[in-house]
């Protein structure tokens, strides 16, 4: 990747807003902008940094738009490069026309997220924030986008920074007692240090836990639908997808193979898996289908057990209940509530949600239940950042381990505790990308295409 050229893009959301901004960044930004801009006050020698100019953008013959133009000299800009922002009238056509002129004058069309990429490469934001940008560009659901946005805005960074500050405090007390043995100041007691370390550990553990939920956000929560034949699994799938994806007939044993489909439910990406019904006396084809159903239930993040409310409880239902219970995250659903209810729900087990796929009743409740399933795994409140990247989770696991070790060692030897805290601080540098390990360099090479 070359970050020495000049890039340009429309920096505001597309639409009929009142204003739209075109951002130009790179060594040529000032020249590109000056060549198109005609100042209202007449001839202009050179654009001054951090001043706003009023005038027009011209295509050589006539004015294309009336604009306000601001030049920000490096490094005092978002990308830390020379940057020009041209504030135009918001119509998409005008914006596109101006952008075309800018490109014609020597800038290159920016790739998605490239301004931020530069901002990272030039050291303005940290690696985790830059990763947030990448996630945001790739995000496929509202929830994932929200988590990515939070990461990009430094939500996670700021939590980690708070941990870092706590550790720096601990470290300074550990070090002071080693490096200044003859001074007459008091350093923090072992108990105070252990407590501070404990707080840092629980912060890390909450973040680590949020990963399970975070992973759902990013890759989608895999949800397997299981049940006896003919209870309405395929119908439910279709209803959730709002599309006739699976074949539905009144014959038990219609579905033989797994059907996977993606849906976005209340802002959460969900991968739904429709399965073959668990027939207690299957034929050969059905038996293979059932084997696959069970496998799908086992590997899914969560399992939805479906029951037919219009039929009495059978042994096969008990089996479904058992299989469903094997997953820590599960929902029991009774279908066909539009018909006369014959099912006697075994009172000891999880209370079910009642729906009628046919009439569409109860589906809203079911959707929000599925959505909250993934949040269930993330323990914190809504403002807690969610960890979505494996790289982050692994770093946090190591930090938690280092800090637990440190807490144990405070009483044994402060130099040992200090060594463990040092390890944790190094891990934090990997997170923010301040470290020079192969791992961090690798992350930079692969995600940012540096050098390609």
């Amino acid at each position: 990747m070359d970050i020495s050229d000049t890039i340009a893009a429309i920096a505001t959301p597309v639409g009929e807003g009142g204003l739209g901004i075109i951002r130009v960044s790179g060594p040529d930004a000032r020249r590109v902008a000056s060549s198109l801009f005609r100042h209202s006050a007449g001839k202009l020698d050179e654009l001054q940094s951090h001043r706003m100019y009023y005038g027009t953008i011209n295509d050589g013959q006539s004015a294309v738009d009336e604009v306000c133009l601001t030049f920000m000299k490096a490094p005092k800009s978002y990308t830390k490069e020379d940057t020009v922002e041209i504030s135009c009238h918001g119509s998409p056509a005008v914006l596109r026309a101006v952008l075309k002129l800018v490109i014609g004058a020597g800038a290159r069309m920016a790739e998605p997220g490239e301004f931020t990429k530069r901002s990272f490469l030039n050291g303005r934001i940290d690696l985790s924030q830059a990763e947030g940008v990448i996630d945001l560009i790739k995000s496929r659901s509202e929830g994932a986008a929200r988590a990515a946005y939070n990461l990009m805005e430094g939500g996670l960074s700021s939590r980690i920074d708070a941990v870092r500050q706590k550790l720096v405090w601990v470290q300074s007390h550990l070090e002071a007692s080693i490096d200044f043995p003859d001074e007459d100041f008091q350093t923090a007691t072992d108990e105070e240090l252990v407590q501070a370390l404990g707080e840092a550990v629980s912060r890390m553990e909450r973040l680590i836990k949020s990963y399970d939920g975070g992973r759902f956000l990013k890759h989608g929560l895999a949800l397997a639908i299981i049940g006896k034949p003919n209870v309405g699994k395929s119908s439910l799938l279709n209803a959730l997808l709002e599309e006739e994806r699976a074949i539905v007939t009144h014959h038990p044993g219609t579905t033989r193979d797994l059907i996977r489909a993606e849906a976005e439910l209340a802002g959460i990406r969900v991968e739904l898996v429709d399965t073959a019904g668990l027939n207690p006396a299957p034929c050969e084809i059905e038996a293979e289908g059932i084997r696959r159903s069970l496998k799908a239930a086992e590997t899914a993040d969560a399992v939805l057990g479906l029951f037919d409310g219009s039929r009495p409880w059978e042994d096969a239902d008990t089996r479904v209940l058992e299989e469903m219970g094997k997953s820590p995250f599960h929902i029991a659903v009774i279908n066909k509530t539009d018909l006369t209810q014959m099912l006697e729900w075994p009172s000891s087990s999880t209370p079910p949600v009642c729906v009628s796929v046919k009439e569409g009743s109860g589906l809203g409740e079911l959707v929000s239940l599925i959505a909250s399933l993934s949040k269930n795994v993330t323990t914190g409140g809504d403002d807690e950042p969610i960890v979505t990247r494996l790289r982050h989770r692994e770093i946090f696991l190591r930090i938690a381990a280092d800090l637990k070790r440190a807490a144990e060692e405070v009483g044994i030897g402060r130099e040992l505790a200090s060594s463990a805290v040092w390890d944790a601080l190094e891990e934090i540098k990997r997170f923010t990308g301040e470290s020079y390990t192969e791992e961090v360099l690798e992350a930079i090479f692969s995600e940012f295409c540096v050098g390609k």
Partner: protein
Amino acid sequence: MDFDIVVIGGGHAGCEAAHAAARLGCSTAMLITSRASIARMSCNPAVGGPGKSQIVREIDALGGLMARVTDETGLQYRTLNSSKGPAVRAYRVQSDTAEYESVMRGKLEKVNNLSIIEGSAVSIEADGGWATGVALEDGTTISARAVVVCTGTFLNGLLHTGLVQTPGGRYGEAPSSRLPESLKRLGITFGRLKTGTPPRLDKNTIDFSALERQEGDSPPPSFSYFGPAVEREQLPCHLIHTNHKTHEIIRAAFGRSPLYTGLIKGVGPRYCPSIEDKVVRFPKRVSHHVFLEPVSRISDEIYPNGISTSLPLDTQEAFLRTMSGLEEVRILKAGYAVEYDFAPPTQLYPTLETKLVAGLYFAGQINGTSGYEEAAGQGLLAGINAARKVKREGAVILKRSESFIGVMVDDLTTLGTEEPYRIFTSRAEHRLVLRQDNADTRLCGLGHSIGLLPEGDYNATMAKREKIASLMESLKNVYIGPIPATRAKLESCGLPVPEESIPLWQYIKRPDVSIQSGTVFGDLAAFSPDEIGRAEIEIKYEGYIERQRRWIGQLSRIENIPLEENMDYSDISGLSIELRQKLGEVRPLTFGQASRIPGMTPAALAILTITLKTRARRN
């Protein structure tokens, strides 16, 4: 006059530099304003402390002098941090400063190839970017192939006591004002720093009877690995405290403080504040402690450690007299602050050679450090490299992962310094590996291979290493378990009884077990306490040492990638202009050094890697 090497200055840096250069076979001149001031301790009469202690032993392992001279001239010997783990233990020796000077002088006078010349340097001669000699104040010129400048606090030194300013390098000695001019002409730039020292007190006017005593350790530890065990009578230090009244008097005098009236412009050390600074920065503290340290057996001077000051003399006397024991005290020499020029050390390679002038080296306080040990460590390295340059041998660079001297020099030459730089153990990321006990095994090989450490000392180290290894090995194969006979033995030594049979190696890792304390570890008569102690450290710290070694290994691939000394950074696209400038300024010799330049990001480093690869491919 003609020499291979001229060392300017005979302070702690100059002594090691001159000794090393001469011992490596170069005809060497040590130029000093007065022979009587060789190895003078300008400030506190002590050698060692955390971090510093490691440096002293590293100097010893490389074949330098400081450890031996300290052992021979101590007044009191102590091990610091003895309640903490062995990795952070440090020695501190109160020195008899007069004896220190004379013993050091004696040793230098005996070195072949070394001439001590009295005189003051006024300019560095250079030709075509190479140092060619030194001009003296009396008009003579000494020609040389390399010059090591170790002029301490003398460059444009200015002493302050109250509002009175006296030009001076330190108490009673003239500053050096022409030499910095000459260096500036060569392109060297300077900054200004400040440090201070307390008044010296007359022992006969202090009432010691009611004061808390601090004794030395018995037996005294020795710094040097190779000298005889220290056997000297020790003197006590005494502890006194400032009080409310002391602080009041100090505060009342701020109007006449050069620090608070803005007279002093240089930046002082944060970690070694003057008493007026302490009173301002810690207004809630009702008392600070002060150690009364003897300066020499043959003088009446007492050094009150902890109250360095530049307040007026009458204030110094008044606040001293508020402390119990000092009611009648008389001041022999006033406390003062000194401001001096230093050359920001990013102008140096990690060999301590200046980037601008080949064959010109800087060592000691001129590089912005403070402390005798820091100065001595740099002096040794500069002396070695000057000699190797003259002999056309490869430069010696000490790595961060192998020595505290390496940490210090890397910090200085990569980061520079904004305040007087002092070593701390926390500056070393590999502290558990860089211990003061193992400096010999870390560095003797190097000291010997460059020809500075005598053969005998090297062989002794290797033999000791073997013995430690065999002791450790034997502890792996002997098991200890809860059988009655063992139990009785352990209980009689106050050692815990293991629940099942485990190798002694494992047993020693327990925090409540020490090899020394039990006969269960077999007959240890064949081993010295030092050897036993070191085996124990290696075993107890095994996990940590492993972890740090792994870390060093992980980094070393990046760390050791060499960079061209005169690489052109100005046109690397993708690097910010600021970074290009910094790289051009520091001119790092390895990727590791580049990575530590302030403002450097891994992304920038990645770009650097690519650039190097494409450039290499093109050539």
